[in-house]
C-alpha cells in the first residue's frame, strides 16, 4: 500500500506552445520542409510587391482619359467608366430598376416563408412563391403589358451571367432528380431512356450542346417560328446540367441503406411518399457538396455562351476592347471579371458548407 501527494501542475516546455510550436510543426518540421518554406517565402517576395503595385499602389483610380492613365499599372478608371456595361450589358439605363427589383424580390420571396413558420399552409405558400417568381421575373426583365419590352439581345453582363446560371440551376434540379430516380427504376423502359439521356449528354462537351441548341434546334421548328437565342441557350444548359445533377444524386441514392426502403415499405408508405419523405431527403443531403460543386462548374461554364453570341460578363471584356477610347485595357477587365466570379463562387461554396452543417443530423453522439 502506498499513497502519493498531489503534485503541482507544471507548464509545458516552451517548444510545445504558441507561435513557436506552430512554426515548428507547420513550417520547419524537417530540413526539407524548411527549405520549401524558405523557397516559398522567396517566391512570395518576387510576386507580391509587383502585383500589389499593379493592383493598387501604382494604379489609377481618378477621373482620367485612357491616354492620361498609366500603362505601368492598372487603370481602374476604365472599370469605373464601364461598370454599367459589365453589370447590365446593353439594358437601357432608365430600366435598370427592373433588374434591381427582380433581384431584390429573391430576397423578399425567400424571407416571406419565415414569417409563417407554424402555418399549416406554409408549404403551399412556398410552392406558390416558387412558381410565381420566374413568371414575375420574366415579366419584369422582358416587359410586356404596361412595361416597355427589352429584347433579350440587349441583356448582358453580370445580369445575364446570373440569369443563365440561376435558370440552369433551378430548372435542371427537378429534371436531374427525375433522371436519377429513372435510372434506379424497376421499369426497364424508363431506366433505359434515363441511362441513354444521361450517358449521351455526359459524353458531349457543353460547347457542342450550345452549338446544337443554337444551330440545330431551329431546324426542328417549323419555319417562321423563331425561338429566342437566349431561350435556346437556356434549354441547352438546363439539359446539360440535368444529366450531371442526375449522376450526383444517383450517388446519394446508392448510399441509402436498403433498410430505409424496407422500413418505409413495411409502414405502408406509397412509392411517392417513400421517395419524397424518406429516400430523397437523405440522398440530397448526402449529395449537397457534389451538387454545389456541380453548380459552381455550371456557373463557370456559362461563360461559354459567348460563342453563340450572347454577351455575358466575360464577353463584355472582349467587346469593350473595341472601344477606341479605352484600347488596351483587357487585363483590367479580365482581372475584374475573375474577381467578381470568385466572390460569387466562393460564397456559393461557403453557403454549401453552411447547409451541410444545418442538415447534418447523423452526427455521432460524441460530437454533440
Amino acid at each position, binding site marked *: 500500500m502506498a499513497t502519493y501527494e498531489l503534485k503541482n501542475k507544471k507548464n509545458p516546455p516552451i517548444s510545445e506552445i504558441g507561435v513557436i510550436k506552430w512554426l515548428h510543426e507547420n513550417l520547419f518540421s524537417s530540413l526539407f520542409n524548411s527549405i520549401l518554406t524558405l523557397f516559398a517565402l522567396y517566391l512570395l517576395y518576387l510576386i507580391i510587391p509587383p502585383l500589389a503595385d499593379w493592383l493598387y499602389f501604382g494604379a489609377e483610380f481618378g477621373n482620367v482619359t485612357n491616354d492620361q492613365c498609366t500603362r505601368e499599372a492598372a487603370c481602374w478608371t476604365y472599370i469605373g467608366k464601364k461598370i454599367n456595361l459589365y453589370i447590365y450589358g446593353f439594358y437601357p439605363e432608365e430600366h435598370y430598376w427592373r433588374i434591381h427589383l427582380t433581384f431584390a424580390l429573391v430576397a423578399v420571396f425567400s424571407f416571406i416563408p419565415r414569417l409563417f413558420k407554424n402555418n399549416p399552409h406554409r408549404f403551399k405558400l412556398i410552392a406558390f412563391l416558387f412558381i410565381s417568381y420566374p413568371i414575375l421575373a420574366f415579366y419584369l426583365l422582358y416587359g410586356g403589358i404596361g412595361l416597355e419590352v427589352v429584347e433579350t439581345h440587349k441583356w448582358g453582363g453580370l445580369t445575364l451571367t446570373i440569369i443563365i446560371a440561376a435558370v440552369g440551376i433551378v430548372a435542371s434540379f427537378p429534371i436531374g432528380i427525375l433522371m436519377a430516380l429513372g435510372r434506379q427504376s424497376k421499369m426497364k423502359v424508363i431506366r433505359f431512356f434515363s441511362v441513354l439521356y444521361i450517358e449521351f449528354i455526359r459524353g458531349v462537351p457543353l460547347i457542342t450542346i450550345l452549338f446544337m441548341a443554337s444551330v440545330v434546334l431551329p431546324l426542328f421548328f417549323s419555319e417562321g417560328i423563331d425561338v429566342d437565342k437566349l431561350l435556346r441557350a437556356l434549354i441547352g444548359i438546363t439539359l446539360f446540367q440535368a444529366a450531371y445533377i442526375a449522376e450526383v444524386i444517383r450517388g446519394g441514392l446508392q448510399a441509402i*441503406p436498403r*433498410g*430505409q426502403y*424496407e*422500413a*418505409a*415499405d*413495411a*409502414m*405502408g*408508405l*406509397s412509392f411517392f*411518399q417513400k421517395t419524397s*419523405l*424518406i429516400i430523397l*431527403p*437523405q440522398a440530397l*443531403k448526402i449529395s449537397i457538396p457534389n451538387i454545389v460543386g456541380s453548380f459552381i462548374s455550371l456557373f463557370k461554364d456559362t461563360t461559354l455562351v459567348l460563342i453563340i453570341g450572347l454577351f455575358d460578363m466575360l464577353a463584355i471584356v472582349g467587346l469593350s476592347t473595341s472601344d477606341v477610347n479605352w484600347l488596351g485595357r483587357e487585363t483590367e477587365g479580365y482581372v475584374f471579371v475573375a474577381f467578381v466570379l470568385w466572390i460569387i463562387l466562393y460564397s456559393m461554396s461557403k453557403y454549401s458548407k453552411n447547409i451541410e452543417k444545418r*442538415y447534418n*443530423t*447523423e*452526427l*455521432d*453522439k460524441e460530437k*454533440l
Partner: protein
Amino acid sequence: MSSNDKQIIQINNLNKWYGDFHALNNINLTVNEGEIVVICGPSGSGKSTLIRCINYLEKFQEGEIIVDGTSIADDVKKIRQVRSEVSMVFQHFNLFPHLTILDNLTLAPIWVHQNKKEDATERALALLDRVGIKDQAEKYPNQLSGGQQQRVAIARSLCTSPKIMLFDEPTSALDPEMISEVLDVMVELAKEGMTMVCVTHEMGFAKKVADSMIFMDEGQIIETNKPDEFFKNPESDRLKLFLNQILDK
C-alpha cells in the same frame, strides 16, 4: 392462452426461390389472434425470409398468405392494406436518421392513416413514455443508444395500432447489456395480447411468453410445439443439436 381461435395469419403451401436456391420449402402455418409465435433456427434457415413474406418485403413464387382475411397477391393496394395492419421491427432498427424521434413515430399515422398531426403527436408521446424514452422525443436517432433506438422502433411500429407485429431478430444487433431493456418491452406487449411473430434466439424470452415454437432449417419447418415440450422433449435430431448449441452458450 389465446382468447379466441380466429386465424389472423394463414400461410398455405408457400414456396420461394432465390434463383436456383429453394429458400422456403412448402411452408404451412397458421397464427391465431393474440398468439405469440417464436421462430428459431440456424442462420440461413429461412426464418427471416418467412416473416418478411408476411408483409411482402420478399416476393414468393408459389402458395398464398392470408392476413386478416386479405390474401396478398401482386396487387399494390392489397399489399399496402396488409402493411398498414402489420408492423415490423428490424434487426438494425431502420429508424429514419433525418427525422427526429417524434417525426419517426408520427410519419405513418399522418401519411398512411391520415391521422391529424396533433392526435398522432399525442399518441406518439404516450408510446414513447411507455417505452421509457419520452424525454428523447426531439432528438435524432443517432443520438440514442442501440437499445433506445430499438425501443423507439417498437414504439414507431405501435403508432399505427397494428393487429400483428413482426420481429426480425430485434436484439441481434444490440450490445449485451441493452438486450433486456428491449425484451422487457416485448414481454409487456405480449402480455397485452398483441399478436406477435418473432424471429429470435432469445430462448429465455421464448420460454416466458411464447404460445408456440417453430424450428426451421433449410427453408422448411422441422418442428412445432408448445414451448415446454419444445425445450424439454425435442423430437428431431436437428432441433436437439440446435438447442444444445444455443443453450450451452
